[in-house]
């Protein structure tokens, strides 16, 4: 049934199949490239819109930070006055990287947060994106409160049975707030953020 195996036809066959498959992949990649870019841009813009107060003009992506830890951020401003920052903040969660978009007002108040991607346990840590009580507490989280979970002496209500995810989430928000303080010229630099307890 199958053709006899000689060196010549084995090489020919593998080469032909690989060339053909490569060509197919190239075509599909080129055909879907724009759609994929558009989809990821839309997801990013949706998350920025969600965490910032309405009415500002959102800047292009900017970045700051040093030595391995850089933060991508967007500034929302109106008539030259900064309204808020949206900082993309990544930390390691329980099951892998946890990436948040954090909206922070210039005075350090957290405006809102949104989960960009996570790989937390379904039914446990994954609730950080859906659990109403946990998500709601980030809306207008005042700068005077301590960004640590209550178990560690802070003011953040953790998700039941998901302390590690809650700590990671809180650290990501704390890092974002530190970035904004740094951008606003406050004393707490980004270096202070990376030393935050976790």
């Amino acid at each position, binding site marked *: 049934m199958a053709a006899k195996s000689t060196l010549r036809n084995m090489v020919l066959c*593998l080469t032909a199949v690989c060339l053909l498959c490569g060509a197919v992949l190239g075509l*599909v990649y080129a055909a879907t490239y724009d759609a994929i870019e558009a989809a990821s841009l839309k997801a990013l813009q949706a998350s920025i819109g969600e965490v910032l107060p309405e009415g500002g003009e959102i800047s292009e992506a900017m970045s700051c930070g040093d030595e391995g830890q850089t933060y991508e951020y967007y500034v929302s401003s109106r008539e030259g006055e900064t309204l808020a920052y949206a900082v993309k903040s990544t930390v390691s969660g329980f099951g892998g990287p946890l990436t948040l978009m954090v909206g922070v007002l210039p005075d350090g108040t957290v405006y809102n947060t949104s989960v960009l991607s996570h790989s937390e346990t379904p039914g446990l840590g994954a609730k950080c994106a859906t659990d109403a009580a946990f998500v709601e507490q980030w809306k207008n989280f005042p700068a005077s409160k301590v960004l640590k979970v209550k178990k560690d002496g802070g003011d953040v209500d953790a998700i039941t049975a998901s302390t590690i995810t809650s700590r990671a989430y809180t650290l990501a928000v704390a890092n974002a707030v530190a970035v904004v303080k740094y951008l606003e010229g406050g004393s707490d630099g980004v270096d202070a953020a990376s030393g935050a307890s976790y």
Partner: protein
Amino acid sequence: MGKKMSLILDGFVKNNPTFVLVLGMCPTLATTTSAMNGLSMGLATLFVLVLSNMAISAIAPMVPDKVHIPVYIVVIATFVTVLQLLMQAFVPSVYATLGLFIPLIVVNCIVLGRAEAFANKNTVGASALDGIGVGLGFTVSLTVIGLVREILGSGSLFGWKIFPGDGVLAFVMAPGAFLVLGYLMALFNKYLKK
């Protein structure tokens, strides 16, 4: 007509990949945390299975025996990558949930298993039907496992809350996957497989 139907039905009952052949356990256990996830994973596998079955049955007579496995893997990997790109472009939210398990379809034993056991000795048409049958069998099995785990574990059905509270957490996690799979497999073999 009767032969075509029986080819499809075989994939459902006699050759049911999950409950009878017990193949593809990695995605079965890992992605069935909800009915929707099980359904999407099943459909993704169905897509790859039908196309790879057809392509492999078309090229099988020309492929030298000693290199047939690498050739099949290249063909399967191509379709998986095509699927991955299409999902990223058009259903990014589904892609984000299934993530890692889409590329892992390449090493799903069902796909290579059907290529070896069926597609390389049958016509393109018959292989397509076999792919549809086995793929649908896999899809239905995963959806049922997902349904049971979602109802017991999260108290919801396709994302709709049907009773209040959190449900039994264990069913969302790995132990629940094994329990549900084991009981469903026992029921399936008792009542459906004659």
